[in-house]
């Protein structure tokens, strides 16, 4: 992966030489981990949650939007994302599963690439989510990576911003699907106008050097404090972002999202490494 980064940067520099000397290429690396271990599709991980559970994890994907780097003046500037199969407009899909199960695919994506004004950067900000304007467009005509049906959340009228599954996607397997809920629709206009619970996760990594640092999404941190073996009766095993599913409480807290009357906090799922 490192090799690709360097190649991309070199290519972009070469391109920049042709005229636009004010911008430079940037690649922000992401990694999916479970505590100290790398996430590997279908591996089993132990000591998870408040009840030291074991889970065989079979999917780990999320969208990020509005990626920004902090420059030497302390101001965040937008990363203009490259257009490719993993990125469109201002949204990118990070994909750490390798097709180990039926709902996955072999290609993986562990970085966000784009351009920023030339300069020195030392902080990173983004949201885990799909921008509202794209979240409610027709997924049947959406460009990649918004055309992957396992990431579509059609009954909620949007996308799963985060998808982490265990086992074989059955009703008894622990799963977490997060996206906007409480979305409205207008039969006259033909689409969604607002969502009461957007569920986009604000992430700020105050010390982040894009040249050397990696954004780590840690499943163990996501489920910290969650009783994985327990399940509120008559709710999905795990958390499908249901507002009354108490199993979501600790997970939302770790994502810095308000839940059941609690206020928004700071996320601990993502960190710089």
């Amino acid at each position: 992966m490192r090799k690709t980064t360097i190649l991309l940067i070199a290519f972009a520099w070469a391109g920049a030489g042709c005229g636009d000397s004010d911008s430079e290429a940037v690649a922000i690396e992401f990694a999916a981990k479970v505590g100290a271990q790398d996430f590997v599709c279908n591996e089993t991980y132990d000591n998870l949650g408040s009840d030291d559970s074991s889970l065989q994890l079979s999917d780990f994907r999320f969208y990020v939007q509005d990626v920004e780097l902090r420059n030497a003046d302390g101001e965040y500037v937008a990363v203009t994302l490259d257009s490719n199969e993993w990125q469109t407009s201002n949204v990118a899909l990070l994909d750490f599963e390798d097709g180990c199960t039926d709902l996955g695919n072999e290609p993986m994506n562990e970085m966000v690439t784009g351009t920023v004004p030339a300069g020195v950067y030392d902080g990173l900000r983004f949201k885990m989510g799909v921008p509202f304007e794209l979240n409610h467009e027709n997924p049947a005509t959406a460009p990649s990576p918004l055309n992957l049906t396992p990431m579509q959340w059609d009954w909620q009228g949007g996308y799963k911003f985060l998808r982490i599954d265990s086992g074989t996607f059955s009703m008894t397997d622990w799963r977490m699907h997060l996206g906007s809920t409480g979305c409205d629709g207008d039969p006259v206009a033909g689409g969604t106008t607002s969502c009461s619970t957007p569920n986009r996760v604000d992430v700020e990594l105050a010390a982040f050097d894009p040249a050397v640092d990696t954004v780590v999404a840690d499943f163990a941190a996501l489920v910290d404090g969650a009783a994985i073996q327990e399940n509120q009766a008559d709710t999905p095993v795990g958390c499908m972002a249901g507002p009354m599913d108490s199993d979501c409480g600790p997970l939302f807290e770790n994502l810095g999202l308000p839940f059941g009357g609690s206020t928004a906090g700071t996320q601990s799922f993502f960190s710089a490494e």
Partner: protein
Amino acid sequence: MRRFTSVFVFVLLAVGCGGSDAAEKWVWDLPDTVPEPRVPDDNPMSVEKVELGRFLFYDKRLSGNQTQSCGTCHMQELAFTDGLPQAVGSTGQMHPRGSMSIANAGYAASLTWANETLVRLERQALVPMFGEDPVELGMANREDELLERLRNDARYLEMFAAAFPDERDSINLDSITKALGAFQRSITSFNSKVDRWQQGDSTALNESEQRGMALFFGGTNEAGVADAFECFHCHGGFLFSQSSDDAGQVFDQKFFMNNGLYNLDEQGSYPPGNEGLFDTTGDPADKGRFKPPSLRNIALTAPYMHDGSIETLEEVIDHYARGGRHIESGPYAGDGRDNPNKSALLNGFAITEQEKQDLIAFLRALTDEALRTNPAFSDPFEEQ
């Protein structure tokens, strides 16, 4: 079938006359009493597209394991329902809700039992195809496989090309949902005895049905109460549902209400995971709020309510007469009459046996028998 034969002749003539490949214009066959449905700008109706949609609707290749089609749960003879309390998906998973009739679905202000976001048939089609919770057709992550199945069928190559003449590679997810949307929009049902009565045929309804109609639309019952039954407040209009939309409608008429089926905890809760609009909004005031379904063809679509928990029309009327359902024991025990979210229209009423029979006679007169056998809506794979 005759109609489609003549269509093919028309197409051949058109091609012979100069290579025009434009799809044939769709003509709505509706009584004067009914407006045309809203048609999205990006999915105009055409004869070819509707016919393609009919094939796709009944094609089991649209399910992952090729055991179910849309028509499995939406059977024409039952006004496009399946007779089950709750639907069963292609992998055997039980849906928490029953299959809704799709007759006149093109007029629904929102689709399914309780979901504000689903306002277009094209988008709704993605839910049964790709939904994972519950699995219905089980196509998630198998869209390429689906497209390959269809592309390997010479008939579909022709049908898609005819339905989407401006697209080069027209077999894609967008065109599939558009064809399914167009077909479902074409399934209109306004040929009941009540329709004939409303169009001026004074012999269409017998006396019992007429009495039932008067009671339905606000008549005074034998106990002397005007508009005792309040039926039409939720089930009014040409659709017999207030949740109705059409081409000329300017306002959002989505409509959801709580009819007192459950009250698990005195705070209005319904059985978990099946609490109506609340499932998507999370607002406690939305617990138990569902879309009042169209009462057209209601005699064909038993059992009733979102979870099929009432078996007959008689029992439905008993439920409304009481003003809510009382479940005495078990996990769902509680008195729905006291549900805090219950509509203020449901206060219960006195009803005589004759009034009940008249009301049911009227409801049965909302059945469109032609819908059940109309070849334009039938399973093309059965015919072959």
